[in-house]
């Protein structure tokens, strides 16, 4: 039996606490913020590494993005991935979720056989959560989304808790399959200094369109079924607040007078 392969889909995103939004121009200044791995994807990676620790195998991190995304893949290696593959080239730029999923699915097929694919619940910039299930559909494998716990790691089957229909469902899925994870699934480990040193020297494989045999007509702005017609940056909706700073008894009293809360009930 060949060793199992786990693939993690990981995107590099701007740090949302630092990124600046230009309210007047309606623009996001991506250069204003440091780049980091999408926070949800670190949970996906952690889950893959846990699988490997239990059952052996290899963790492969795949990212599609600009050259700088190499650092996100190195970060993934420091956190336990064995290899990093970057899909890169101008043809990929401007892809929507459909085109992104198509490219990632081609890369997964190129990488060879794979047992489980791990993706994040969503990215903090694209914010759609579509890429995981779209990849699964293209590869014709099952998926479970919004996984908040992995309860059994098997070679042929995975058991997970998934949040859906307003409840928690314990599900089993035959492998190969894909899961998308929420932040609740685990606490991603922090890489040690030694791991970071090792990862810094790691080679990242770069693949272009020819390596994954994908038709460029299906990629980028031209290949994407959706396009952004325009963008608005609405200023944060602050509220006119009445601030009460007296002793608790008085503040509460004033609040209730304003609100008439008591009487509604």
């Amino acid at each position, binding site marked *: 039996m060949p060793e199992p392969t786990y693939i993690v889909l990981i995107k590099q995103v701007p740090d949302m606490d630092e990124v600046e939004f230009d309210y007047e121009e309606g623009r996001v200044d991506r250069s204003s913020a440091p780049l980091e791995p999408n926070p949800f994807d670190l949970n996906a990676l952690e889950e893959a590494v846990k699988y490997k620790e239990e059952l052996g195998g290899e963790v492969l991190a795949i990212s599609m993005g600009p050259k700088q995304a190499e650092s996100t893949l190195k970060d993934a290696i420091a956190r336990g991935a064995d290899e990093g593959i970057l899909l890169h080239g101008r043809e990929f730029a401007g892809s929507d979720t459909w085109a992104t999923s198509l490219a990632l699915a081609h890369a997964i097929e190129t990488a060879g056989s794979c047992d489980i694919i791990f993706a994040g619940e969503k990215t903090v910039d694209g914010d759609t959560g579509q890429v995981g299930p779209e990849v699964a559909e293209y590869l014709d494998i099952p998926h479970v989304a919004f996984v908040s716990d992995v309860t059994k790691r098997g070679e042929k089957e995975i058991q997970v808790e998934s949040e859906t229909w307003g409840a928690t469902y314990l599900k089993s899925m035959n492998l190969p399959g894909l899961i998308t994870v929420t*932040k609740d699934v685990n606490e991603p480990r922090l890489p040690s200094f030694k791991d970071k040193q090792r990862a810094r020297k790691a080679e990242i494989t770069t693949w272009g369109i020819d390596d994954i045999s994908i038709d460029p007509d299906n990629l980028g702005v031209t290949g994407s079924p959706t396009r952004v017609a325009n963008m608005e940056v609405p200023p944060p909706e602050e509220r006119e607040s009445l601030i009460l700073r007296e002793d608790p008894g008085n*503040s509460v009293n004033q609040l209730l007078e304003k609100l008439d809360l008591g009487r509604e009930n």
Partner: protein
Amino acid sequence: MSDVMVFAENNGNKIHPVSYELLGKGKELADKLGGELTAALLSGTSLPAGELIERGADRVYRGTAERLAEPIESSYREVLVQVIEEANPEVILIGATNFGRSLAPRVAMALDTSLTADCTGLDIDEEKNFVQIRPAFSGNILAHIKSRTSPQLATVRYRVFPEAGIEEGKEGEVIDVELSLGGEDTKQVEVLEERRGKKVNLEDAEVVVAAGRGLKKEEDFELIEDLASFFDGKVGASRPLVDDGWIGRAHQVGYSGRRVKPRIYIACGISGQSQHLAGMKDSDMIIAINSDPSAPIFDYADYGLVGDLYEVVPELTRQLKGE
């Protein structure tokens, strides 16, 4: 090819209310496109189609299959694709619930067509393009999206649009669809157990009282519960308290938790980081209790009480109860 179809999400007993909101908006879009409004009612056991019609649907495509009794996306994907191919709508609206957001991408990829996630605005422009407005960048921007393929799919956020009203006695057509659910792949996922006990529907609460890091011990949730119970409301929490295991994850409010829009949101000892705000800033009324007068939450609150939550919360509960 100018009809609008609404996917009527249900758990076998009850149609999710987001479906009624979609019917309201869907009707408006269908009128602008010069088409009809249809609904896909797919379920494990047969559900009445009447309310969908009374709320605006001209036609309901109804189908049942045993396997639809469970939330398994690949089963639903198979039958929804079948219904879409039969009804041939131009626009398909799906609630942006966890289920909808997991099902829609499978359908879009299966049909090789466009999908826009989590829309908060929908319109038809002068050239009859379907314009989909959605937040991105963690809710900091609004993108206007257009599609160049057909049909065009969108998932739509719950509690953004009002529910379509009921027009009693309105007539419509119910088409019973013979579903063929044979694909082996629909058997790849199996539900072993439904953990109903954990269910907390924060999204539907009229009042949410939430605690953050200002709470010092797990036991102190009692203060929060006391206040919430006065309103018959629900208890929420910021992420750190959930991470510490003080309260179940179903109570987490925010970007990676639940998005709530209650009549009253009371934030106790919560600083108001953007990821928390993303889950509650659209509440009708926000009351913040925090000991730090410079806490960002006060900028987003209608009423701010500067003080120690251990004094303010019990005092509020006491005065509300008229003690």
